[in-house]
């Protein structure tokens, strides 16, 4: 039994921190802001990571990756999320679009799409959710109707993150409304600037770019655009969601923010003065974060691929930690907590964390859906 992440783990972590320090300003809060410079910074940083072989460190070498293992990938995920994800929306391409293409794509699709992802040159978005299909994703209704040697797609997607930033989308459609869920959905790889796609941003407490509507009217797609088999989209989506569920190392941002706030409070003598009840909450939050990290390691370390129940366990703990830490940070910060902007405490990172944490138990599948997965593994299916 051994929990060491490997001989080169510390060096990799340090290398990533040095790079971030050199390329990302201290007040950076991610790509999802009103300032387009933040997205530009992310895109430039992705190219830098790619040049250094760090963007797709854990991809196989044949696809432009670094041939690293899941632990290298874990360290990258932790360091990126901890530092407000300076890869911006590109983490989605690296984390699940690329691996889905490797598993389910054609040779031509791999040749076309993997190199730009590995080079840090393309943003993908995920067009799964619809107004009537949230947790019950398999019931989605955006229709792809056969037409000549292709299809014509009409329908609506919603909550599509980064849709205005993305060049490409994995679009989930229904090709056979009467078939059971594992045969009715087909995924298409579509360019976001195709005729028939219109994006409308949705203002939200999370900040810009997180939530958008995507209207699709008469979009033409061809056989070459199908990811996986026609009608077999659900299998690919389930795969993708399992990767996505362990994709965000929320615990790492929490640990980083707690350390930064501790140092600020300690510097002006406020740490010792916190109420004992708050100290106790702080300690419990840190212990829970350690548990979240260990459960994430368990979920990714399973050599047989991502076990959906293990991923669900990890996500339940990580997302509830994220929200609990948001409360602990705000309470410990005192009256300054709600200040936003670069001049605020931790450059506004506490306010930013609290707002985004509210969505932790909804985005990428709600905590209730995770509980369903866990209970199925313990109790068997429900009728």
């Amino acid at each position, binding site marked *: 039994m051994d929990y060491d992440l490997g001989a080169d783990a510390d060096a990799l972590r340090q290398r990533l921190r040095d790079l971030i320090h050199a390329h990302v300003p201290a007040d950076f809060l991610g790509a999802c802001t009103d300032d387009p410079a933040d997205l530009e910074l992310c895109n430039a940083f992705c190219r830098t990571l790619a040049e250094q072989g760090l963007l797709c460190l854990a991809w196989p070498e044949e696809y432009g990756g670094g041939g690293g293992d899941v632990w290298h990938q874990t360290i990258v995920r932790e360091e990126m999320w901890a530092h407000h994800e300076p890869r911006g929306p590109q983490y989605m391409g690296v984390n699940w679009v690329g691996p889905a293409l490797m598993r389910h794509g054609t040779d031509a699709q791999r040749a076309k799409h993997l190199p730009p992802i590995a080079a840090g040159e393309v943003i993908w978005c995920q067009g799964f959710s619809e107004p009537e299909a949230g947790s019950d994703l398999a019931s989605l209704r955006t229709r792809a109707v056969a037409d000549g040697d292709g299809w014509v797609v009409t329908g609506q997607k919603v909550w599509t993150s980064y849709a205005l930033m993305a060049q490409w989308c994995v679009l989930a459609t229904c090709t056979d409304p009467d078939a059971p869920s594992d045969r009715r959905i087909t995924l298409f790889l579509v360019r976001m600037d195709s005729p028939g796609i219109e994006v409308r941003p949705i203002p939200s407490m999370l900040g810009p770019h997180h939530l958008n509507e995507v209207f699709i009217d008469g979009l033409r797609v061809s056989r070459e655009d199908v990811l996986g088999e026609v009608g077999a989209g659900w299998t690919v989506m389930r795969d993708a969601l399992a990767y996505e569920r362990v994709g965000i190392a929320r615990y790492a941002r929490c640990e980083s923010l707690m350390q930064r706030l501790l140092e600020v409070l300690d510097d002006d003598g406020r740490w010792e003065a916190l109420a004992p009840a708050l100290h106790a909450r702080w300690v419990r939050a840190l212990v829970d974060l350690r548990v979240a990290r260990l*459960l994430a390691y368990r979920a990714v370390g399973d050599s047989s691929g991502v076990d959906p129940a293990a991923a669900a366990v990890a996500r339940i703990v990580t997302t509830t930690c994220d929200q609990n830490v948001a409360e602990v940070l705000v309470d410990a910060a005192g009256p300054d907590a709600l200040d936003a902007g670069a001049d605020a405490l931790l450059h506004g990172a506490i306010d930013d964390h609290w707002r985004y944490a509210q969505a932790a138990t909804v985005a990428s599948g709600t905590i209730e859906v995770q509980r369903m997965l*866990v209970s199925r593994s313990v109790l068997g299916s429900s009728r």
Partner: protein
Amino acid sequence: MKPALPEDAVAYGESARGRLERLGGVEFGLRAEADRELRKDAGAALADLGMLELDVRDDLDQFLAAAALCRVAGALCVPWPVVEDLVRTDGQWLALIDPAGPRVDHGDLHGEWVGAALDGAAYRLVIGALPHPAKLGPFLVPATLGEPAEQVSADDVARHLVLGAWRILGGLEAALGQVVEHVKARKQFGQALAQFQVVRFGIADASVALRGLDELARFTAWRLHAAEPAQRSADAVALRLHAVDAARAVLRTCHQMLGAIGFCDEHDVSVIDRHLQPLLREPCSGESLALRLVPAVRSGAFETLFS
């Protein structure tokens, strides 16, 4: 990175479970409440299992074997102070105590006790008379502080806290296992309780809590053999705190999902809950454990990715 328990520890745990089930399992623990002499048979069974040869101060493998034994002892309510016996020195059993009011689980079983506070300050203990029979912690005996004894090392305190957490883990796993079987079998409103989503979610949350505790227990056992001294102590307190918190949530779920049957003496969950109480309350409350960790958070002894 290999988070799985070594096969030897797993095999040892399984053979311990077999032997202690033959002794009578949880029901034996219940009978020992009425006939305290029976506990000697538990001691003999543990000796058969080689408990006295286990050296918890040696390498990680020995420690994990001891942890596996504590886990089984928790699951089967073995009426013996397994942790206190495992961390003995020179034939003296070690109890972790609150010096303001020492109490020792199974204190009457043995003449020679050293009691240590969490800071390592130690005393010989004078075991008092058997108290009024109690449902919660039925083998707890009051004690008074005797002569000061040699300071107990921070590592021994840490080992004690960690092995106690493994015992708690075993008890909670057994309790939840019983509840899982119960909700699958018990029907109300024409269907198994396991069909009701509120029941399923309760079980999901409890099993998430246990999977987390299991991970932390293994990680902390490893850390006792891999980390710096101050980190080892902080990690041990953190594990025990987490075990106490998990126990509160998991046992509550277990009782609720069993309905009335779970309160009966004849039900394992009732026995497990009552017998775990000393580990959950002694040597101090979870709140005190949490506050003990505050300096370790500030100094970085409780390590995070960014401390």
